[in-house]
């Protein structure tokens, strides 16, 4: 069928508008603040073969993996799929899920009696049973410790809710009122989406509509291939690591071999370390999403993010590794870690192919959660979000000094200190940029922060120190890594102890003294404009020693202007030391 270019554009815009609308309905009707505040969900539309045609609304780490779930539905129910059915799933192995807390509701779309696709909603549930409240169980060593596993379920059959199933779900959560409300919001959101897509398909005629849906995917395919083809053919290898498996300190490495051949890209994880005991193992769906997040953020962000875009990408993740754990492994943390390592490894490999677009590393966050009781006896759960780490630099901008996880590309934001002091029994003493922690470069990394907060009650702290004591914000193109993070607990009696990287600890009132890690730099620091270096000095982001010895800049006596000739001479001398010779581990002097 010959496609009309105007109708093709109108169809793509309308599908994206419908997925946005599904998101607005979701925010307006869900119960849990996870959706309305953290926006931890995604809405997407799949075609009749399960390919995701539109995913306009959603967090980056959900990108492109929705098709796994939809294809599981088609595998299990393809022969009997009917109008007014609704499906539910979460299991990574049985049903194409990404991790257990993210539940998918999928609703088939029929137009003129013909099956034309599904509208879907993937959303993080507040509690799904398992060994710890709130879906994250840091002690988990098996999937069974993490919550209820759902294969593809027919939740609604011919328009009738299966009450027995609904009761089963509500029995398996500590917060049934939230789960009930949120699932209903997902049902409502997919219904509105379904009605709008069906209306579109009826207007065009079902057969024509499918041809245009295919056209939308083909367009994304062409866009992405054109971007891949701009990079030189070759094999590019890289790795990124974590220094723990949630129970002991040991390196766990994600290895990537990226092969660019013409307009195709193969990502091979062969050589990646075996799966671990703790809950940072990735499902295959999550690994795909992490790769797509890395690609889409490395390439032009305005490219379409539907599944057609990723047709030219072939991912090989060997079973039994941390990027494709065998059935039964704990995986709940995977959307953050090891997604972070996967994104970093892919970014590093691509930077070798296309250095100009290289992305320096976003430092890993060091903070966990403190749980205690207020004077009223109410339990509170306090996230140390104001301790966010620094982002890596790219060509054209320094790293954001404090930013949310890379798997959200910073979409999760930091709280105001004032708001947290209203909500929790805490007193903040400091949240300021670190000195000499930003990875040096032509564009420098984010500084990270000095963060001090007093927890005023007895509390139990769950530690998650991925960015502690080693550098996680790597540099690219001659840029240096950001400084490692550090965390200490200071008690009322003056005693100070180093915080553990993982595990739980109960204490009395205590002050967290944290240096969150810095992001990596991009390019040779000797090429950073001297005025920017001097500004960093005046701003207290770098010390005078760093200005001279890493950046090769000399200021006049008043420290107000660059001494151009002395700077040129110093840079010439330092440049003679060879690439990277002037970099040294950045350590905070505070």
């Amino acid at each position, binding site marked *: 069928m010959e496609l009309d270019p105007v109708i093709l554009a*109108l169809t793509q*815009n309308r599908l994206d508008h419908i997925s946005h609308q599904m998101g607005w309905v979701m925010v307006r009707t869900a119960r849990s603040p996870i959706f309305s505040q953290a926006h931890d969900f995604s809405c997407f539309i799949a075609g009749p073969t399960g390919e995701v045609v539109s995913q306009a609304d959603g967090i980056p780490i959900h990108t492109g993996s929705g098709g796994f779930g939809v294809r599981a539905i088609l595998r299990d129910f393809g022969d009997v799929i009917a109008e007014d059915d609704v499906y539910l799933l979460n299991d990574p192995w049985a049903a194409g899920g990404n991790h257990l807390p993210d539940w998918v509701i999928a609703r088939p779309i029929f137009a003129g009696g013909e099956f034309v696709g599904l509208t879907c909603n993937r959303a993080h549930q507040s509690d799904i049973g398992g060994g710890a409240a709130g879906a994250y169980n840091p002690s988990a060593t098996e999937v069974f410790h993490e919550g209820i596993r759902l294969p593809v379920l027919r939740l609604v059959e011919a328009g009738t809710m299966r009450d027995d199933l609904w009761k089963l779900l509500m029995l398996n959560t500590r917060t049934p009122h939230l789960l009930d409300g949120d699932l209903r919001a997902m049902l409502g959101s997919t219904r509105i989406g379904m009605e709008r897509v069906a209306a579109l398909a009826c207007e065009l005629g079902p057969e024509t509509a499918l041809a245009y849906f295919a056209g939308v995917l083909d367009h994304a395919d062409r866009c992405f291939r054109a971007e891949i083809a701009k990079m030189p053919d070759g094999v590019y290898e890289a790795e990124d690591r974590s220094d723990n498996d949630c129970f002991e300190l040991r390196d766990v490495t994600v290895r990537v071999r990226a092969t660019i051949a013409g307009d195709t890209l193969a990502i091979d994880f062969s050589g990646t370390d075996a799966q671990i005991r703790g809950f940072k193992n990735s499902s295959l769906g999550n690994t795909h999403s992490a790769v797509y997040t890395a690609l889409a953020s490395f390439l032009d962000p305005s490219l379409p993010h539907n599944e057609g875009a990723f047709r030219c990408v072939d991912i090989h993740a060997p079973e039994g590794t941390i990027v494709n754990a065998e059935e039964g492994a704990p995986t709940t943390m995977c959307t953050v870690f090891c997604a972070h390592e996967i994104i970093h490894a892919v970014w590093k490999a691509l930077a070798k192919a296309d250095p100009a677009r290289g992305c320096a590393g976003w430092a890993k966050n060091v903070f966990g959660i403190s749980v205690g009781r207020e004077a009223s006896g109410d339990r509170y759960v306090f996230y140390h979000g104001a301790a966010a780490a620094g982002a890596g630099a790219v060509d054209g901008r320094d790293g954001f000094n404090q930013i949310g996880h890379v798997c959200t590309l910073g979409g999760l*934001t930091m709280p105001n200190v004032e708001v947290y002091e209203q909500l929790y029994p805490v007193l903040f003493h400091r949240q300021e940029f670190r000195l000499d922690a930003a990875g040096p470069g032509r564009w420098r990394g984010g500084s990270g922060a000095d963060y001090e907060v007093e927890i005023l009650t007895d509390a139990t702290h769950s530690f998650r120190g991925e960015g502690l004591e080693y550098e996680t914000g790597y540099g690219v193109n001659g840029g240096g890594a950001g400084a490692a993070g550090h965390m200490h607990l200071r008690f009322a009696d003056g005693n100070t102890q180093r915080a553990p990287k993982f595990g739980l600890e109960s204490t009395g009132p205590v002050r967290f003294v944290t240096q969150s890690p810095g992001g990596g730099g991009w390019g040779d620091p000797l090429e950073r404009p001297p005025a920017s270096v001097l500004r960093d000095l005046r701003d207290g982001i770098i010390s005078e020693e760093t200005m001279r010895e890493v950046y090769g800049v000399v200021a006049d006596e008043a420290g107000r202007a660059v001494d151009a000739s002395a700077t040129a001479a110093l840079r010439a001398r330092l440049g003679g030391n060879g690439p990277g010779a002037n970099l040294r581990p950045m350590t905070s002097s505070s």
Partner: protein
Amino acid sequence: MDATHGLTAPPWRVGVDVGGTFTDLVVADAGGRTAVFKVPSVPDDPGAGAIAALEKACAALGLSLAAFLGDCAFFLHGSTVATNTLLEGKGGRVGLLTTAGFRDSLEARRGLRKDPWDHRTPYPPVLVPRYLRLAVRGRIGAEGEEIEPVELDDVRAAIETFRAEGVDSVAICLINSFANPAHEHAAAEIVRQSGLCRWVSVSADIVPIMGEYERASTIAVNAYVMPRVADYLAALADRLAELGLKTRLLMLQSNGGAASLDQLIEQPVNLLLSGPSAGVGAIQHLANGLGEGNLVSMEIGGTSCDVMLMHEGRVAITDSLSVADYDLVTPSVDIHTVGAGGGTIAGIDTAGMMYAGPQGAGARPGPAAYGLGGTRPTVTDAHMVLGRLRPGPYAGGSVTLDLEAAERAIANEVAEPLGLPLAEAAAGIIRIVEQNLLHAVERISIQRGYNPGRFMLVACGGAGPMHGASVGRALGARAVYVPRQSGAFCAIGMQHADVRRDFVHVVMRELGDGVGEALAEGYAALEAQAADALRREGFEPGEVRFGHELDLHYEGQQWDVRVALAPDAAPDEIRAAFEAEYDRQYGHTNPGGRINVSNLRVVGIGKLPPLAEIVFETVERRAEPASVRPVYDQATGGFLETAICDGAAMRPGDFVDGPAVIEEETTTVVIGSGERARVDRLDNYLITFREEG
């Protein structure tokens, strides 16, 4: 139209909207008749544009400037000067005093970015460099208690640094000052006494809300734009007074209300939406005239479309505004802007998909048809190709439209690459941009919990009436309304503004039996502030109308729902009002759930004398077209001989059936097949759709 544009006798009322491209002046006479005078803006000297527009009006009236200004009873000014100061980076050199340990909230920005995917775009430059953000020891706690006294020697030391660095505007934002401003006030006193500079912005006085990032960002913008805005406004007021203006100069604020210059000079952050916010006065006026409280307006200019929604007679005022990615908390009319206007650029992407927007060609070079060097095809060029706009003088003669240039641009960049006939390519551009407009209207209604089909669509701005009927039909709107003076919608709106000041007080109390006293106390304090502000605007206490609002949320939630209630409402009434609004917005409630009161708000309104209302006799009459020419018809996909009506000849009661084009002084109205446009008793156009089937 006669030389005086129908204006007869003073006292005159003047509204002048200095925009980026045009300066619109609306003059009303004693009888309520209005006339629009449009001149090009003078970006380097915005006041010159206003004076030029006044001169144009005086020439039409045959009056001297002195005589005209001497008979002005009302002079309201909307200006982009604050916005431009921010956009162009021409603000003051600001020093910021912060609480020790927290000097970076301004630059860390809570990590907020509009589009997470677009991580390569840097933040806009921080308005106060870190070396001018200086720490003051001392700490106020969450309940407003003093944990550590303020160290005023730190302030004195900072002043010396500021002096050495040439700081000409100081901002002060200390932790928890919304709960207790004592430390900020003590620091401000030292700064004022030091004689360092004229401008001191204190966060607790101007933006007393919780959240140190938003407060710091707002107060930094205030301090940054203040020196230039104050100079400009003072100079303009002096110039107008010298020229003979006897009434005081009123400024239009972001909240759509007016305030006098001396009230605003310390709070220029309230001016960042001055101009577009006047739309609220215009839509309010239409609502009153039509007796219709559910309106959604789509004001389309050269670069963008502003969508505003009125529900049951109220346009929402929001707290948050983002200008050039600077986050502000300032009472602002809730306007949703999309990049869809006459200058919106269309083309084909690298993989063969057609697009229209969001990029635009701006005022310069503008559409290819302007002949100012633009070669990219725009929406205006598409209208030219489709015969909807005629070649020749356009927009009050400020540009001349060149059909061949429009055809060339669309042929080169859209029609030929896709192998489409020229008209189909142009029609495709229009369909895509109208889809964007439709989505924008759906978004502002659906996101806020309204069904857009229940609203009447108001199409305005120079380009709005070309798309109104088509978008209204797709939206399922009952009818589309087109104000005759569409091209000066905001300046017209200024004629209907009242003096308005907004005040807020943070409460953070659980809604329960003990809360009444706290609310009464808070309201009393805010009412006193409002009464005082309005007294300085010349309103006695009896002439001031107060509005009372509460921001409420369920415990554990961090966003508020706002309800308007009598100040003495009992807790159960408050709960009922909250639950009703919560249910409307979110589709459920949490019966018996704990409710917290976040903020109290008082709005003080001083009514300005209303514009005399004119209602016309209507006489049903089919309008005589002035001419006929081929215009593309979307329904049939071809050119039809189309009636072209001269708007100036259309009288109340006149109607025309589509396909038709009405050429007005400041806009062009496109009416499709199956649609009828009729001039109503307010002398505006009402477009209705013929029943289908």
